[in-house]
């Protein structure tokens, strides 16, 4: 399984080939980065089908916008950025669907879409609680925390993806953890 974009795909020649619309180069990029993109989407959306669709949308956007890629960041950062934006779009669409489905008795709390295969069985229940509160965080805090914790990224890498400073990322992660601790403590107290 490949969860890292190889060095080769970061070369100027590779990016130039990609920009010239080469199908072979695009295939190499998809094959070497699909696991990375899928895992980001899965952690963000916690649903296999949605993660799969959002991953495909990420590559469609990448194919469409690669010509405008200014190479100020790495290709990996660029892909992550698209993937996270696509995940946010998916969540927004889902939210608006729920708003319209108010009469069909759809209840988020009763039917959480939690379906993350990367969590071992004995932790499923605990993870469900965690993700319930994680999804209540502001999107910037959630993104920073997920990139840092689940993708094992550094503050610098996270800052590059989120187009912000390292200090801002540190603060976002600190606030995210603080908020989660607060919500979880309240939850366990009421149990």
């Amino acid at each position: 399984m490949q969860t890292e974009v190889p060095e080769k795909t970061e070369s100027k020649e590779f990016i130039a080939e990609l920009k010239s619309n080469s199908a072979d180069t695009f295939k190499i990029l998809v094959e070497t980065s699909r696991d990375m993109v899928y895992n980001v989407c899965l952690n963000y959306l916690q649903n296999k089908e949605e993660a799969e669709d959002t991953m495909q949308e990420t590559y469609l956007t990448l194919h469409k916008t690669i010509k405008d890629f200014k190479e100020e960041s790495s290709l990996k950062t660029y892909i992550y950025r698209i993937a996270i934006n696509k995940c946010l779009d998916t969540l927004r669409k889902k939210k608006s669907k729920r708003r319209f489905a108010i009469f069909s008795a759809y209840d988020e709390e009763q039917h959480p879409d939690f379906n993350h295969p990367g969590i071992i069985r004995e932790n499923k229940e605990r993870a469900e609680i965690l993700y319930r509160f994680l999804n209540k965080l502001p999107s910037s805090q959630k993104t920073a925390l997920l990139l840092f914790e689940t993708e094992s990224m550094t503050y610098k890498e996270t800052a590059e993806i989120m187009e912000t400073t390292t200090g801002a990322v540190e603060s976002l992660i600190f606030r995210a953890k603080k908020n989660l601790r607060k919500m979880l403590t309240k939850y366990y107290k009421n149990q």
Partner: protein
Amino acid sequence: MEKKSPGKYSEEVEKTLSILSGIQKQESNPFTYEKVMMKLGRNGIQPAVKKYPAILKYSLLVLILIINLITVIKFTTEESPSNQTSGRETEKVKTLESIATEYNLFINY
């Protein structure tokens, strides 16, 4: 009812938080590329096919032009075959006419 101590809560909270860093990486669909290309095709974007170097295109064009030129030159310098054929035909007609005259075949009864 048994009440949990504050220490117990924080232990639970930390246990729950630690799940984030222990999530196993998952393998994506091996047919992702094919699916993306299919969607690209559906959106009217043709998958880019590897192009031949431009020099090959021009070489082929020059080669075709040269072959055409040689053919034109060959045909204009040689005697046209249709002329040769019509000459032979006239000879045949003359021979047949002479035979017909010899055997009085032109006489109408």
